């Protein structure tokens, strides 16, 4: 049956919805090979005579379309995950994840970064607004946090510098902490 390799790519993504698996160069190449083989067969059939193997041409064409759909869906869904990473991890992707991305995907991410930054800079008549912050309705001005990893010096908006050491607790303004909490460096204590 045609389209099996394409299906493999889809199943791979479906199996692990939370993780970006390594870019499957190998299977992609096999899908493209099958597509080109199908096309060649069709071309030969059509060259021979009109209406020759009408049915066969249709079968192969449907398989071509199917393979294309599987391949593009694979790329599209991966890009979606990568896009999400800009909002969850920030503008720098952890190396372990980057390892699973192919070069074009890394470039896509860098481009996306630029496009997003340009847009954010122009908000409010060139005032600029970082949309990756303020993800939750603010309830208080200062929050208690525990530091989960050694981070070192952190400069806040008002110019104050605080040294974040693993295990220590701090009472800090909400705004500057948000980014670090999302990245898992600080932990918000509420009880």
């Amino acid at each position: 049956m045609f389209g099996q390799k394409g299906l493999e790519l889809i199943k791979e993504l479906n199996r692990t919805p939370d993780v970006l698996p390594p870019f499957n160069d190998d299977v992609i190449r096999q899908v493209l090979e099958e597509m080109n083989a199908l096309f060649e067969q069709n071309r030969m059939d059509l060259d021979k005579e009109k209406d020759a193997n009408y049915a066969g041409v249709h079968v192969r064409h449907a398989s071509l379309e199917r393979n294309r759909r599987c391949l593009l869906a694979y790329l599209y869904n991966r890009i979606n995950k990568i896009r999400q990473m800009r909002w969850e991890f920030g503008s720098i992707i952890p190396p372990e994840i980057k390892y699973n991305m192919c070069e074009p995907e890394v470039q896509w991410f860098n481009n996306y970064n630029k496009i997003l930054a340009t847009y954010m800079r122009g908000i409010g008549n060139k005032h600029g607004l970082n949309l990756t912050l303020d993800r939750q309705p603010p309830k208080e001005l200062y929050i208690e946090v525990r530091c989960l990893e050694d981070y070192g010096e952190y400069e806040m908006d008002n110019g104050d510098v605080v040294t974040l050491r693993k295990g220590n607790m701090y009472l800090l303004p909400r705004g500057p902490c948000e980014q670090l909490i999302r990245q898992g460096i600080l932990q918000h204590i509420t009880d």
Partner: protein
Amino acid sequence: METRFKHSYCPNYFSLEDILATQERVLCKVEKSVHGLGCLDQSTENEDLVVGTTLQLPFWLAFPLSQTRVRVVSVELPKIYKEAFREVLTADASIVDLSKLGRYFYEFGSHLTKLNHRDSSAINTMLMNAFKDRLRVLIDWAQNLCTDISKVQRLDTLEKELYLEGFKARKELIAWLSEGSSKMCASEMVVNHKKRKRAVVDI
């Protein structure tokens, strides 16, 4: 935690579920011989697909072949969408184990109605009613924390997703009612990523 914009279920060209749903097989009868593609029928050594052969084909292939100007194959409805089984579902849809019969029951059923079979509208009605019946049970489970795994396993893929959504919504509501929405958390992706890192290091 503010979630990303969520829109209602609407499969598109890139939807993984839709691609998998159209992989479901249907029984087809060959009406125009297909040269050189006998390999599609694994039960024969023939080089060509001969007229009259019956074989299982995935829907994504069967459908276009049934719609060609000169029909290449004719498609038969799968058993679970035929009248006899429709009656079972109409009687009591909630007891049926969809995970065994059709993991993409609703999507595949909807695709089948495109064949314009004389049963198409009956299938549509059946799908809607079965969904309504089973949804009632689903909502009940999600609200009352059904922990019986065997029951949840009898759901098809769409229902499982709905159930998980309901479960999550309930959790979020309880969290909001008790501690308010002000606690900030690490993003889910970050948490999962760290867990995996630790797991790798532990090995």
